[in-house]
């Protein structure tokens, strides 16, 4: 049995020895050229004059490209062709690529690019939500609005109403490996591109467009990324296209990697949001009216902002039944980096908004916040009837009642809460807080046609197996999980399986590895491909030994045909000699999806993944500093394909989510310059920021839907468990006085201190 085993990451040995290769590690010929963008230093306006003389005369410079040199498409956009690779003269944000330097070395390219002289006609940039609303600067014609029930009546019946607003900061991906690409020109107009991308097919398309060739001329290969988190879904397009164009022009290999500061200045980040709300509860503490407005700062180009903002709306309920609800979503266009995909894809902002509302209501109702959540949960899977979400999808797998009960018992919640109260009574400078938060996360791409995957499986005549699929490996363990699926199917040990780099020439027309869908889609495609080969093998072997294919079993590196036993290798050899094809493709598409994003009605998700967390923190009321003391998590990964990998996703997701809401602060100045474009100013969690005590368990019930071995997607959902840390900080602050802390995110020490002062002063 391979599935369900806590096997290490497939490349763990390579990682620890430094021999795992990332793009910049690939051996390249000595004549490889290196690229760097020259970028704008203003946020909005147009170029009046550009003097490239010193750039051209700089050491090692081979060539410089401007928009006018691009013969074919000047467009890196994954959506509506609004994002030129090189500026056409108009500047939309500070950091926008304007020209491309081709030089003999990386450092020479960087030095040259920095020597440009540009004079601009400056316009005043649209930076804030207020600026954008005032200028009606937005994507789509107006806000998207979804309604369900009768909001007016809901508010009339409400016995308590809370109103408020929360600012939610964005987030830099800070994948440890920066964006990188390498293009190798081939004969006959072909181009091979190695790209650190979650979406090789899109890179293939964009490169083909940039070169003016058909898709089949471009082969994109991705062995692994040094982290992606959504930041390499569309943001790698620019580098891959630049490399391909330069490689085509010079007929030399071309490589580009962003220096970290460039990476942070040029690429998009998580959308920051403002969420305003008005919520009403009835006398049973049930929410009967909710009016929510989302304002998302999308940056200058559309990129993936519409589906991101949609997903925020789709998760505006988190885990709670909302009979009467209205959600309005503004997708604002600003002169800042084009915000993009980031783990959770808008979901976290929607969930945080709702958890804030729950926290605020529980505070104002002076009621136990967990009991309050429980009352408002969707009805459980076992109930006779099911509630529907605000987008009219029945919730038929809800399990948070049981998960909550188990988690609270496991982490001794009640006793700890009381102990914390006693401790707080004795401590005036420091305060502790504890909080619970659940997550329900919808699994599937909301653009339904993306929910498909292909795979390719080869069995060689010695019984060794090579598999390939459209999913990319960015650390999440997808390759190992799909290898485990193949090993399971063929009944062979895991080292019989070789996993190979994602390659558009092997499996075509793939979707991005995103939306947590990687193992659901590709695992299933691999399984189907394996079944196709197995069926042929079984038919042949059964015929040889006069048995029915049903009598053939693949177990423990052997093939059993009735009572006859062959090693898997011998079986493969026998099939080969009988001219049976030992190679097959597999194709999977998620069933039962339908979705109307304009009306906000349908079944956009195949199922939901659930999780629950309790965090405990301590804050210093003199400085606003804090520590996460302990976190306990129960997460639903269904019937886990690999519990070690899944727990890794949960731990990593929690810390990344907590980072988003605590120390990770993006600061732009009045000119639209991102001031936090280095790791010395933008602070992701470090070793000592992890919870000192960290208990993660998986909820071991299988998915009710027939997903791959009844597992559940696990990439994104645990990210939102970090919300419990933020709520715990808010809880600690609320010990300083009766007022509601109204904490914004990220809760930097500065924001915490301000909130402490507000609460102390009863504001």
């Amino acid at each position, binding site marked *: 049995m391979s599935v369900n085993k806590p096997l*290490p*990451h497939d*490349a*763990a040995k390579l*990682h*620890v*020895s*430094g*021999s*795992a290769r990332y793009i*910049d*590690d690939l*051996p390249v010929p000595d004549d490889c050229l290196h690229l760097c963008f020259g970028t704008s230093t203003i946020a909005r306006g147009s170029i009046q004059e550009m003097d490239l003389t010193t750039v051209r005369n700089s050491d090692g410079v081979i060539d410089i490209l401007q928009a006018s040199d691009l013969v074919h498409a000047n467009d890196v956009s994954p959506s509506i062709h609004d994002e030129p690779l090189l500026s056409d003269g108009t500047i939309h944000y500070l950091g926008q690529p304007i020209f491309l330097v081709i030089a003999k070395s990386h450092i020479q390219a*960087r*030095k040259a690019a*920095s020597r440009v002289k540009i004079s601009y006609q400056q316009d005043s940039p649209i930076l804030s939500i207020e600026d954008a609303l005032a200028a009606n600067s937005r994507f789509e014609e107006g806000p998207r609005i979804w309604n369900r029930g009768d909001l007016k009546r809901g508010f009339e019946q409400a016995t308590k109403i809370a109103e408020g607003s929360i600012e939610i900061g964005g987030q830099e991906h800070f994948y*440890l490996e*920066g964006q990188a690409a390498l293009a190798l020109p081939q004969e006959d107009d072909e181009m091979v591109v190695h790209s650190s991308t979650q979406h090789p097919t899109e890179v293939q398309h964009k490169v083909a467009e940039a070169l003016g060739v058909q898709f089949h001329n471009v082969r994109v290969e991705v062995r692994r990324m*040094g*982290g992606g*988190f959504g930041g390499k879904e569309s943001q790698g397009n620019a580098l891959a296209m630049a490399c391909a164009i330069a490689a085509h022009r010079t007929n030399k290999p071309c490589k580009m990697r962003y*220096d970290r*500061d460039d990476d942070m200045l040029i690429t998009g980040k998580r959308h920051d949001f403002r969420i305003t709300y008005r919520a009403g509860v009835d006398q049973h503490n049930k929410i009967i009216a909710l009016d929510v407005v989302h304002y998302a700062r999308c940056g200058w180009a559309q990129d993936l902002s519409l589906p991101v903002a949609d997903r925020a709306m789709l998760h505006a309920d988190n885990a709670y039944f909302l009979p009467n609800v209205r959600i309005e979503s503004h997708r604002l266009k600003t002169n800042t980096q084009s915000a993009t995909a980031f783990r959770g894809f808008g979901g976290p902002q929607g969930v945080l908004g709702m958890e804030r509302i729950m926290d605020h209501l529980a505070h104002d109702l002076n009621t136990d916040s967990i009991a309050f959540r429980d009352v408002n949960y969707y009805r459980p899977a076992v109930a006779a009837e099911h509630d529907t979400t605000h987008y009219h999808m029945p919730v038929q797998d809800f399990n948070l009642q049981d998960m909550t009960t188990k988690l609270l018992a496991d982490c001794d919640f009640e006793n700890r809460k009381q102990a914390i109260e006693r401790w707080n009574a004795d*401590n005036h*400078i*420091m305060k502790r807080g504890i909080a619970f938060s659940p997550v329900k996360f919808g699994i599937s791409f909301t653009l339904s046609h993306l929910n498909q995957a292909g795979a390719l499986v080869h069995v060689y005549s010695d019984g060794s197996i090579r598999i390939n699929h459209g999913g990319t490996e960015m*650390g999440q363990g997808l390759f190992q999980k799909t290898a485990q699926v193949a090993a399971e199917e063929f009944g062979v040990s895991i080292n019989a399986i070789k996993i190979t780099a994602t390659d558009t020439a092997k499996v075509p027309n793939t979707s991005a590895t995103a939306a947590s869908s990687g193992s659901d889609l590709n695992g299933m495609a691999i399984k189907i491909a394996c079944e196709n080969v197995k069926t042929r093998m079984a038919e042949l072997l059964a015929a040889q030994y006069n048995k029915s294919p049903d009598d053939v079993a693949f177990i423990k590196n052997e093939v059993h045909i009735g009572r006859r036993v062959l090693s898997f290798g011998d079986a493969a050899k026998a099939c080969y000699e009988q001219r049976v094809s030992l190679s097959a493709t597999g194709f999977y598409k998620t069933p039962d999806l339908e979705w109307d994003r304009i009306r906000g009605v349908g079944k956009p998700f195949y199922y939901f993944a659930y999780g629950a967390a309790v965090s405990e923190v*301590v804050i*210093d009321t003199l*400085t*606003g*500093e804090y*520590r996460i*003391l302990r976190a306990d998590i129960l997460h639903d990964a269904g019937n886990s394909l690999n519990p*070690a*990998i899944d727990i*890794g996703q949960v*731990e*990593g997701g*929690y*810390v*990344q989510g907590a980072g988003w809401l605590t120390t990770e*602060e993006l600061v732009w100045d009045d000119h639209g310059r991102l*001031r*936090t474009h*280095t*790791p*010395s*100013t933008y*602070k*992701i*969690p*470090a070793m*000592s*920021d992890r919870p000192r*005590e*960290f208990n*993660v368990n998986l909820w071991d019930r299988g998915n009710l839907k027939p997903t791959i071995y009844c597992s559940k997607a696990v990439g994104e959902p645990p990210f939102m468990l970090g919300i419990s840390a933020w709520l715990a900080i808010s809880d600690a602050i609320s010990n300083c006085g009766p007022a509601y802390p109204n904490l914004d995110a990220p809760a930097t*020490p*500065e924001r915490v201190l301000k909130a402490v002062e507000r609460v102390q002063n009863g504001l």
Partner: protein
Amino acid sequence: MKLSFLLNGEPQVIEDVEPTTSVLDWLRVNKRLTGTKEGCNEGDCGACTVIVIDENGARAVNACIVFLPQIANKALRTIEGISTLDAPHPAQQCMIDHHGSQCGFCTPGFITSMVAAQINNDTNHDVTLAGNLCRCTGYAPIFRAAQACEGTKSPKWFYDDQSDLRTLAQSVDAKLPTTTDELANILAEEPETTLIAGATDVGLWINKDLRDIAPMAFIHNITEMEHITEHSDHWKFGANVTIEQMRVWSVDAQASLTPLLTRYASTQVRNSATLGGNIANGSPIGDSPPALIAMGAKLVLLKKDTTRTIDLQDFFIAYGHQDLQSGEFVQSILIPKNQNNLRCYKISKRFDQDISAVCGAFNLHIKDGMVQGARIAFGGMAGIPKRAKHVEACLTGQKWDMNTIKASHDQWSQDFKPLTDMRASADYRLSVARNLLTRYFYDLSDNPTEIQEVSA
């Protein structure tokens, strides 16, 4: 420049290379040893961590901000040089067993940090690994891996390198002075020479600002400046003493400095950064000046044929302007002993490896419940590290209690007009500075104020 050193046990002699080539670039581009990764090129992520060995032992440093001349006469170990495929180092096996790698990009840096810590027998993993960022794992499995391989013996190659170094041909170069006299001469001839000590500042000028810093001199080989010596009423620190050396010293000699110094950057940066550099750069947000000023430290400045000693607080004149004459350099720092009431508080967004938004050092002389004297100095509150003279005056001669502290409320804005930047607002800086005096009061009276010491 002709440099010799050991790379993974093999002697290297290199010539014709730019002295500002980083060890990282040289490894990756020239040697095609790509196990050492570039995650930031500014000392902040640890992906490029390598081990430098000399007669003093082994230390982890960030290869992106170490320049080739800085490893002259030393032994360098990279991830490729710590084990063989058949015999992994225990840190490597533990990382596999505990699922310590996901994307794997940070992994070689973590392993080299772990190996260096192990050679030094240091099991405070939160400290030794604070300079290695991981975006995937949330650190928990890496911490478990580090715990699991505690107590491993130092690898044989460590001893081999140390003994091989003794027979290595020494690198000699005019720009690698070995005595203060040589340095004084260099500066007398070319006063505009950029001195490079640990390069944790200068490295960023080169890597990020793409600055040309010639002419330059690497001063880390001046051994007479790398010692801490005890005198009757003070300690003398050579300018080349690293912050890590100082941190280790502080544990027994001036324990109230240890928490501050432990939060100064990361192990890798502390292993390179020098006290002289931290002062000479004149930064208003350097972490050592406030504490040193609060202790009444003095600075010894040397120039060809002259030496002068000044109060450290007078060295900082205005932002970007220090009392350093043409041809002069920092030779040593004199720190008065036994500063029992010294407390230092660093406030930053992230606990570890962050630059201070505010860094305050308090040193009050209290007798019979009365404030007899006060030295309070802050970083991050002005264009230079600066004393809170009005506050000090307001406290001096008063009863040491909360009323006195409250009475000093308005003095803070007399002393400081801080800036708003990406680290903190002016308001926050001022409120925190004020509140830190309250923390100091509780701290001295042994009331718990330290969130680090709270556990669930």
